[in-house]
C-alpha cells in the first residue's frame, strides 16, 4: 500500500498485477509498446468467410474456455443484455472456475452473476459494478478486487496490456457470417458498438453473436470481421424495450429543471455558448433538459453548435435536424430516433472510446469539447469528485465516461446540495474518482460555486445576476440544513481499485461494515 498524489492510500498490486499509484494529471508516462495479439493466418480460417458455429457453447469451447481466463462483453444493450449471463451459465455447466468478467459496464440484469461469484465460476469483475453487484463487492464478498475504469481507461488498459482479454463475446444486432457487425439494424438495434472496439482489436479470441444474420457484407462494419474467430446465431441477443435507456425523458422534477436552467444560464452568462461551441450530451433527465435550454439559447442568438459529443437521443437528433448543431459524435445511442439518425445522416457519426476517450493515444475528442456537464455523488472542498460510491460507502455506480470528460475545457456539475438528508459536499469524498483541478463549476439549487483555479470564469460572471457562492458557503448551508453526519466507519480491507485514465490507481474502495 502506498499514498498517491491525491493523498489516498492505494494498493500497489491489483489482482496480482503491479499497479502504479496516481501521480497527478498527465504525470504518468509509460514507456514500452502496446499489447499485441498473436499472429493469425488465413490458412486457419474458412476461405469462404463462413465462421458460423452452431452454438455459443461450442464457440466458447473452440475459443479455449478454461479455468482462470478473462471474458469480456459490452454494455450497448444496457439492461436488456441476454448474452453475458449465458456465458457464465455455460461455464458453470462445464465446471469452469476462476473466470474474470470484464464488461464495459454492468446493469441490474446481471444480478445472476452473483451466484457465479458465490460458486467460484467467476473470481472477480473488472468493470463497473452497479446495484446488487456493487453491494456484493462492497461487503467484501468477491474473491478478487473489483477494478473500476472509465470507458477511456478500459480502452487504455486493454491497449496497454494491463487488462488482457482471452475471449471477447460481442453481441451484435446485425452481423454477417464473416463477423462484420454493426448495431444499426435488427430487433436489438442500439446504434453503436463502440465499447466493443478494443475487445475486437486486442482479445485473443473474438466471438460475434447475433440474432440477425445478414448476407456478406454487413455494412457499415463497425466491428471488422477480420478480427473475429467465430460467429454464432441465437434467437435473441437483447430485449429491445430494455435496450432503450430509461433516462430518455426530460425531467419534470422541478428541482432538476431548476438545476438545468441555472446551468444553461451560467453557460450563457459566462460566454461559453458561442458560434461553433461544442458540448458533451448526457442521457440523464437533467442533461436532456440542459440540451433543450442550450437549443433555446442557440435559436435566440442565431448561433449553431459545432458538434455535440456523447449519448444521442431524439432531442439531440432534433437539434441536428433543425441545424442547431453541425455534427453528433455518438458514443452510445439511447433511443430509436438516435439509431435512425445514425443510419440516415452522415453528420451523425459513430465514435468509440478510442477516438473519444483513450488517454494513451495521440489526442482524443474529449479534451476538445467546450462544455461538459456531468454528475457526481459527492464533491469535496477541493472540488475532487466521487461517482462510484455513496456516502454510506457502498459501490453503486460505474465511472462511465466521467473521468474522460473531465478534460473538457469547462466541466460543470449540476448537483443538488443534498439528496434526501445526505449532503453532497463533503470535507473529503468517500472515493476520489477525479481530481478537483479538472472540475470547474458546481451548480446547486442554492448557488453556484466556481473553482478558484478558474479565475477566467470568475471574471466572466463577476457582474452577472447568477447566485455565486464559495464551495465552503454551500457546504455550510447544507450542513446547517442536514446536520453534520457521523464519520463513516469502513473496514481497512480494500474491495476495489479505482483507476485513473492513465491506468494508475487514484483510490481504493474499502469494505462496508454491514
Amino acid at each position, binding site marked *: 500500500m502506498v499514498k498517491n498524489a491525491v493523498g489516498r492510500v492505494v494498493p500497489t498490486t491489483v489482482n496480482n498485477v503491479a499497479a502504479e499509484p496516481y501521480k497527478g494529471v498527465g504525470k504518468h508516462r509509460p514507456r514500452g509498446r502496446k499489447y499485441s495479439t498473436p499472429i493469425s493466418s488465413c490458412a486457419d480460417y474458412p476461405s469462404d468467410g463462413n465462421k458460423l458455429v452452431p452454438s455459443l457453447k461450442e464457440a466458447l469451447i473452440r475459443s479455449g474456455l478454461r479455468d482462470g481466463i478473462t471474458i469480456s462483453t459490452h454494455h450497448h444493450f444496457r439492461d436488456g443484455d441476454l448474452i453475458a449471463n449465458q456465458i457464465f451459465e455455460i461455464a458453470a455447466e462445464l465446471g469452469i472456475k476462476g473466470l474474470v468478467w470484464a464488461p464495459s459496464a454492468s446493469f441490474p440484469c446481471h444480478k445472476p452473476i452473483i451466484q457465479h461469484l458465490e460458486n467460484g465460476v467467476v473470481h472477480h469483475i473488472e468493470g463497473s459494478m452497479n446495484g446488487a453487484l456493487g453491494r456484493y463487492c462492497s461487503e467484501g464478498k468477491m474473491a478478487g478486487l473489483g477494478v473500476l475504469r472509465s470507458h477511456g481507461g478500459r480502452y487504455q488498459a486493454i491497449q496497454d496490456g494491463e487488462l488482457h482479454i482471452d475471449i471477447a463475446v460481442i453481441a451484435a444486432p446485425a452481423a454477417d457470417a464473416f463477423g462484420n457487425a454493426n448495431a444499426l439494424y435488427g430487433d436489438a438495434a442500439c446504434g453503436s458498438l463502440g465499447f466493443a472496439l478494443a475487445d475486437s482489436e486486442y482479445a485473443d479470441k473474438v466471438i460475434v453473436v447475433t440474432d440477425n444474420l445478414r448476407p456478406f457484407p454487413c455494412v457499415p462494419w463497425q466491428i471488422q470481421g477480420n478480427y473475429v474467430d467465430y460467429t454464432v446465431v441465437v434467437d435473441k441477443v437483447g430485449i429491445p424495450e430494455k435496450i432503450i435507456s430509461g433516462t430518455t425523458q426530460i425531467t419534470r422534477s422541478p428541482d432538476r*429543471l431548476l438545476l438545468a436552467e441555472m446551468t444553461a444560464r451560467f453557460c450563457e452568462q459566462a460566454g461559453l455558448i458561442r458560434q461553433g461551441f461544442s458540448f458533451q450530451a448526457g442521457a440523464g433527465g437533467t442533461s436532456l433538459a440542459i440540451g433543450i435550454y442550450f437549443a433555446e439559447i442557440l435559436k435566440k442568438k442565431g448561433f449553431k453548435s459545432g458538434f455535440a459529443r456523447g449519448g444521442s437521443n431524439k432531442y439531440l437528433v432534433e437539434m441536428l435536424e433543425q441545424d442547431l448543431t453541425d455534427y453528433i459524435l455518438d458514443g452510445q445511442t439511447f433511443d430509436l430516433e438516435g439509431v435512425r439518425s445514425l443510419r440516415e445522416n452522415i453528420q451523425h457519426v459513430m465514435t468509440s472510446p478510442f477516438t473519444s476517450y483513450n488517454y494513451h493515444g495521440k489526442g482524443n475528442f474529449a479534451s476538445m469539447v467546450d462544455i461538459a456537464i456531468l454528475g457526481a455523488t459527492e464533491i469535496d472542498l477541493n472540488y475532487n469528485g466521487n461517482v462510484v460510491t455513496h456516502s454510506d460507502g457502498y459501490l453503486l455506480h460505474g465511472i462511465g465516461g466521467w473521468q474522460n470528460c473531465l478534460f473538457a475545457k469547462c466541466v460543470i456539475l449540476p448537483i443538488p446540495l443534498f439528496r*434526501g438528508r445526505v449532503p453532497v459536499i463533503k470535507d473529503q469524498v468517500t472515493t476520489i474518482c477525479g481530481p478537483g483541478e479538472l472540475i470547474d463549476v458546481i451548480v446547486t439549487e*442554492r448557488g453556484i460555486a466556481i473553482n478558484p483555479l478558474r479565475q477566467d470564469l470568475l471574471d466572466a460572471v463577476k457582474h452577472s445576476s447568477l447566485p455565486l457562492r464559495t464551495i465552503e458557503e454551500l457546504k455550510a448551508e447544507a450542513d446547517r*440544513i*442536514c*446536520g453534520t*453526519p*457521523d464519520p463513516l466507519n469502513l473496514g481497512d480491507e480494500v474491495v476495489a481499485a479505482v483507476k485513473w485514465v492513465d491506468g494508475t490507481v487514484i483510490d481504493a474502495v474499502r469494505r462496508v461494515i454491514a
Partner: protein
Amino acid sequence: MYNKLVSAGNTGKNAGSDCHVSLELLETGGIQLSIDSKVGTLYGGRIAALCREMLGHFGIENASLAVEDSGAFDFVIAARIEACVRQLIPTDKRYLPELIPQNSYASKADKMRFSRLYIPGNSPKMMINGGIYGAHGIILDLEDAVAPQKKDEARLLVRNALRQIDFYGAERMVRINQLPRGLEDLDEIIPHQVHLVLLPKCESREQILEVNERIGAIQRQHQLEGEVYLMPIIESALGVIKAYEIASAAENVVAVALGLEDYCADLGVRRTVAGAESLYAKSALVNACRAAGVQAIDSVFSDFQDEEGLRETVLLAKSLGFEGIGCIHPNQIKPVHESFAPLEEEIEKAKKIVLVFEQAEAAGLGVVSIGSKMIDPPVVKRAVQLIDRAISLGKLPQNWRPEGE
C-alpha cells in the same frame, strides 16, 4: 396514559424526508429506543440523541419510542415526537428548534405577490426546497392539503418548518383552517415569524376581526411586535357579495384571494377553463379590492402540466386587474412571473412618465403632461411601482435612467 400506543408522521414509499414515530409510556424500565433509518449509518447517533433529549424535555423517564425514518431532518423528527407526546400527556411545553437568523426578514403591505406556492402542511419533503424556485410567497397549508386526522401533527410540523427552513426572502404564509379550528392554528404558528395568514372560506368582516383579536392576544402574550398581514380567501357566493366589507375590514388585510373550486360548487356550476361562470366573481372581487386599496389575487390553476393554459389564464387575470395567482406546483412559478411581468411597452411608458415627472418637479412645475395628456399623481405612483417590479423581475437594470440624469 400508560400502555397506550400513539403515533405520528408518515411511512412508506412516498414518505421521503419524513418519519413515522410511535410512542408508548411505560411505568418502569427507562427509555427504550428503536431507530430504523434509511440514513442510519450517517445520522443514527444524532437521531437517538434527539429522541432522548426530547423525552427528557417533556419529563418522560419510562417509554418505548420507535422511529421509522426515511431521511427526515431533525425538525421533522422533533415535530413527530412532540405530536406523540401531546397525545399522551397534557403539557404547555413545546420543543422548539432554533429560529434560524435567515428567517427574520420583514414583509410589506404592498409587496409583489404574483405567485404564492402552496405546500401541504404535513409533507416535509415538499417544504425543504419550497423557497428555491423564487415564488413571491410560500404558503404552508394547514387546511385542504391536510387530512382531518393529521391536523394536530401538521400544525407542529409547520411551526418547526417556520423556524428552520430558509425560504430565501419569499413572504412566509400559512393557510389556517376554517374558524374556529383556525384559531388554534394561530396559537401555534404566530410566534414564529409568519408574515401573512390566509383565511379560507371567508364570508364576513367579523371573521377578520376574530382572527385579529386572537393574533393580538398571542402577540401580547409573547411580547411580539410587527404586523401580521391577512389574505382572506373568498370561496362562496355570499363571500363575493361581501367582498368589499372583507377587503376593508382591517388595516392588515393586504390582499383578497378567490377560491373558485368551492365558489363554483356553491353556485352549482362546473368550473371550466374558459371561466365564463366565474367572470362576475372575478370582476366583483377586483372591483372591491381596488375600492379598498388591496391586491386582488386569482384562484389557482389546477392542471400543472398545462403551461399554455396557465399562461392564458394569467394574462386574462392580469387584464381583469388581478395582481397574483396561487401556484400548486413549482413549475408554475416561472410562467406566472413571466405572464404577470410588465410588458416592454408598459415599462417604456412608465420610464417616460417618471422621467417627465422628475423633470417637472425639479423645475418646480405643478402640472405635468406628456403630449396633450395630463399626468396625475396616482399615475406617477403606478409608474414608479411598475418600474420597481420590472427591476425586481430582472427586466430593467437598477440604474435605468439615461446617462447624466
